């Protein structure tokens, strides 16, 4: 059991991947004071990636997906205040104000406030039957319960991003008939190349999930039996259940009203510190500098949440540190494992590498000139690993050899001569 040796208090707002990892990292870095985490979600903090994947298709209780056990928090002297919303930050008094009006002092404050699903202002959406976002364990429990009780199990997923596509694959697996409506001209438009979008479109078609692009949902009519989802091209789709996966809004309100800089997220420096020396921000809610890509970015990922948390903890304990991770991400849909590394924005050339002897095993390499920016690897951990190393080191790649499936897939064959 960790003994609290001094009276200093570190308050963390948000107890998901970044907040929880921060708390444990802070203890590891030598913080001897109190660590108090607040979160509006009443459940013991859990892994979010499985929510749209294995958790949705299982009957498991969320307890199987906990970030840490209840005992771990006790052992490390970390206090969880769950089901509690922080309503304001008073920087001048170094206090947080809770929803019940009580005020609590902090010496250091960490904003790990994350994001919330966008619910688009579509007429009839909120009053339709069985509409769900997918961000929390409670959302998934509700979806599972609703699907089990539904006779026809017709699901319309609005939005063809990762959440929408993973949810579509999972719901199909547990017996729903699923249609995805995407507003752009292709799925995953914001995060990947048209070639990858086409692959995922086909993958879903092969598995019996229809994806329609250029579908702008404009209204939902609901009668006692079902919802009618109407698009601006005159088409309409029947749904017993509607899943909304059209992106997130960053939870910046607390930071904004406390006078911190908001720019596409809470702006932080390379140690995850805001303009206030005693306030840090980590995870999905931050707009931070990435030295590999030499620009500010906002990332929605476990990698960013965890790595930035570790940097903030070290910085708070006075260690020399700098956030310089290369972003990575993964998605599972059907029998496909997608692994992505790097940031592809601004690429001018895409090279597809197919492995001759394997089905559904390929990788997409994003270049800007000679510089490798990112790799998307489909059922191909090797490509993901090589891509990670090449990006980190800044190796020049022989593009002809990379594209040639007859060339053995090994770094020594892929690197350009110096």
């Amino acid at each position: 059991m960790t003994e609290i040796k001094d009276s200093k208090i570190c308050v963390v707002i948000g107890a998901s991947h970044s907040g929880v990892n921060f708390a444990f990292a802070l203890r590891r870095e030598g913080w001897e004071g109190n660590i108090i985490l607040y979160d509006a979600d009443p459940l013991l903090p859990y892994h979010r990636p499985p929510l749209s994947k294995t958790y949705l298709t299982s009957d498991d209780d969320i307890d199987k997906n906990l970030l840490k056990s209840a005992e771990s928090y006790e052992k490390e002297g970390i206090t969880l205040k769950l089901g509690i919303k922080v309503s304001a930050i008073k920087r001048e008094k170094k206090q947080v104000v809770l929803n019940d009006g009580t005020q609590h002092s902090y010496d250091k404050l960490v904003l790990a406030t994350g994001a919330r699903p966008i619910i688009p202002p579509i007429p009839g959406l909120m009053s339709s039957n069985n509409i769900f976002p997918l961000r929390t364990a409670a959302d998934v429990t509700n979806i599972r319960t609703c699907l089990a009780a539904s006779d026809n199990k017709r699901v319309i997923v609005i939005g063809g991003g990762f959440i929408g596509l993973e949810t579509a694959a999972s719901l199909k697996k547990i017996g729903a008939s699923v249609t995805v409506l995407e507003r752009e001209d292709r799925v995953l438009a914001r995060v990947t190349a048209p070639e990858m979008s086409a692959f995922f479109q086909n993958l879903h078609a092969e598995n019996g999930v229809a994806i329609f692009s250029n579908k702008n949902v404009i209204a939902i009519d609901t009668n006692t039996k079902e919802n009618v989802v109407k698009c601006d091209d005159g088409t309409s789709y029947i749904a017993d259940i509607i899943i909304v996966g059209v992106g997130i809004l960053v939870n910046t309100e607390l930071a904004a009203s406390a006078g911190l800089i908001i720019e596409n997220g809470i702006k932080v420096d390379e140690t995850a510190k805001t303009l206030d020396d005693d306030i840090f921000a980590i995870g999905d809610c931050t707009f931070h500098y990435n030295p590999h890509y030499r620009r500010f970015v906002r990332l929605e990922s476990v990698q960013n949440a965890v790595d930035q948390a570790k940097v903030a903890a070290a910085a708070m304990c006075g260690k020399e540190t700098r956030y310089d991770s290369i972003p990575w991400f993964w998605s599972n849909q059907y029998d496909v494992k997608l692994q992505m590394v790097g940031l592809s924005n601004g690429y001018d050339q895409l090279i597809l590498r197919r492995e001759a002897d394997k089905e559904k095993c390929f990788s997409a390499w994003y270049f800007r000139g000679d510089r490798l920016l990112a790799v998307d690897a489909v059922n191909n951990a090797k490509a993901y690993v090589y891509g990670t190393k090449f990006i980190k080191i800044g190796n020049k790649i022989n593009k002809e050899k990379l594209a040639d499936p007859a060339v053995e897939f090994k770094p020594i064959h892929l690197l350009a001569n110096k």
Partner: protein
Amino acid sequence: MAKITFITSDNESITLEGSSGSVMALAVENGVKGIDGDCGGVCSCATCHVHVSPEDMKKTGTASEIEADMLELDDNADEFSRLCCQLEIGDHLDGVVLRVAK
């Protein structure tokens, strides 16, 4: 029930008992230093790398293809390396000694 011993990079030896779940989850649950399991156990992050004692390799078996590929992320990987999220706890693992990778 299986007793599993972890040796951390500080040479601390921790023996834990488990009956189900992955070895990574057991280690995270008990705060074994150096095993993070950031991805939650889906072989995506390589933050649960251990070196199996050579004599215990017959109990754990060798890494699967994807696991072996992911292990290449770590320059310290060797023939005894495993990502312990891929080691399912069972009686067969009783007594194994795992050195947490640096």
